[in-house]
């Protein structure tokens, strides 16, 4: 007999998971319902963790924000402090699906589902974000860059529950953006590029981060392109060099609708646009 269990604490959720032979965790349900319908999972028990208060909180400190795994996209969009601290993070959230899905979909759920078409992991990669996972009394932290093992596969053990996503706020002299291409509003992302740049006191690029959506089996960083930018003035020639490095390193999966060549061009253009856009957010930009 199917059971639906609404946990009231993380401990309670762990107990429910242990008590059932084949339980699955559900948060907002926006992906789980599709998995059930496609027969990709057929658990006896669904353990709903979206009523657990501590998983639904956004906690700000001076230079960081801790986002509970069950915080919805809607909660993120309406958090004024987050919008001020990391504008491009919230702007990326606003572009996800339609409002019905954002009302229920959670950041933690998207991370755990690990579908490479989801947008936020690329953004989180550019913010050097980390997550925490809990199993019983044990808590461990994992950088988002180490969270994905393969297509729709995360580093979480079966008994572990993702509890928070931890993000550093933008320091001074830094900016970011996320650009993506979808066939129509709200569709799955065909190509997405997140960029964060930070300058040192001399005005040179101290930190460059480029995160990619739908560029392979897992969300990835374009590390070579990042190193091309670091230490430079982010002049046009350096942007061109970074973009050309990104293009030659892209290793795209086959796609039934969009050829590799086409997607490479989209990634290239989005990256160039994104870097130029972020450059205008930085001090000393003469454009």
């Amino acid at each position, binding site marked *: *007999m*199917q*059971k*639906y269990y*609404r946990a009231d604490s993380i401990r309670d959720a762990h107990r429910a998971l242990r008590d059932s032979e084949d339980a699955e965790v*559900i948060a907002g*349900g*926006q992906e*789980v*319902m*599709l998995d*059930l*319908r496609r027969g990709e999972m057929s658990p006896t028990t*669904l353990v*709903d963790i*979206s009523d657990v208060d501590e998983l639904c909180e956004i906690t700000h400190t001076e230079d960081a924000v801790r986002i509970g795994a069950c915080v919805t996209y*809607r909660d993120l969009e309406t958090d004024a402090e987050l919008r001020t601290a990391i504008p491009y993070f919230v702007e990326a959230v*606003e572009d996800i*699906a*339609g*409002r*019905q*899905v954002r*009302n*229920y979909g959670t950041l933690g759920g998207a991370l755990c589902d690990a579908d490479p078409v989801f947008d936020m992991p690329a953004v989180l990669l550019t913010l050097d974000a980390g997550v925490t996972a809990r199993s019983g009394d044990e808590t461990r932290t994992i950088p988002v860059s180490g969270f994905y093992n393969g297509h729709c596969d995360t580093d979480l053990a079966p008994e572990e529950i993702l509890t928070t996503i931890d993000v550093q706020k933008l320091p001074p002299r830094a900016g970011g953006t996320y650009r993506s291409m979808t066939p129509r*509003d*709200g*569709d799955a992302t065909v190509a997405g590029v997140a960029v964060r740049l930070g300058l040192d006191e001399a005005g040179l690029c101290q930190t460059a981060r480029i995160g990619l959506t739908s560029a392979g089996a897992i969300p990835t960083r374009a590390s070579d392109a990042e190193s091309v930018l670091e230490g430079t003035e982010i002049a046009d020639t350096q942007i061109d060099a970074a973009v050309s490095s990104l293009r030659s390193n892209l290793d795209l999966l086959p796609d039934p609708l969009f050829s590799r060549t086409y997607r490479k061009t989209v990634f290239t253009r989005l990256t160039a646009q994104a870097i130029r856009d972020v450059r205008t957010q930085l001090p000393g930009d003469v454009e």
Partner: protein
Amino acid sequence: MSETELTINGRSHTVSVDPHRPLRDVLRQELGLTGTKESCDSGVCGVCTVLVEGDATKSCLVPVGKVVDKELTTVEGLGSEEELSEVQRAFVDCFASQCGYCMPGFVLAAESLLDDNPSPTVEEIREGINGNICRCTGYVKIVDAIQEAARRREER
């Protein structure tokens, strides 16, 4: 199967269903509330939109076990045939409907949009309904209708 109590349009209903079943199927097949439509089955088209505690959601993506003890509103709970809701009235007056299949979803998405943002810009309206698909109208009259509904609500 388990006994499940749902509060829909202010009335309490008890149904015996599998708790993993999509809310949409329970509304349509167990309760005869067929104003909630079905189409894409994958959370794209928006015809199954209902309100949960006032927030628009796609009922094909919600297991019924999740909404026990929540206030649900379907299109049947808005206006009556004699007296349509302001949003429904505006859709009629602006000729926003052609075949009509997507209308319940659009009307509910519009209701929740206007509750959150009583005077949205055209851009905000377009963004607010981008989770709903209409194959007939081209959306222009739907956007007009939502603007008109916002005006009427303000005058109220």
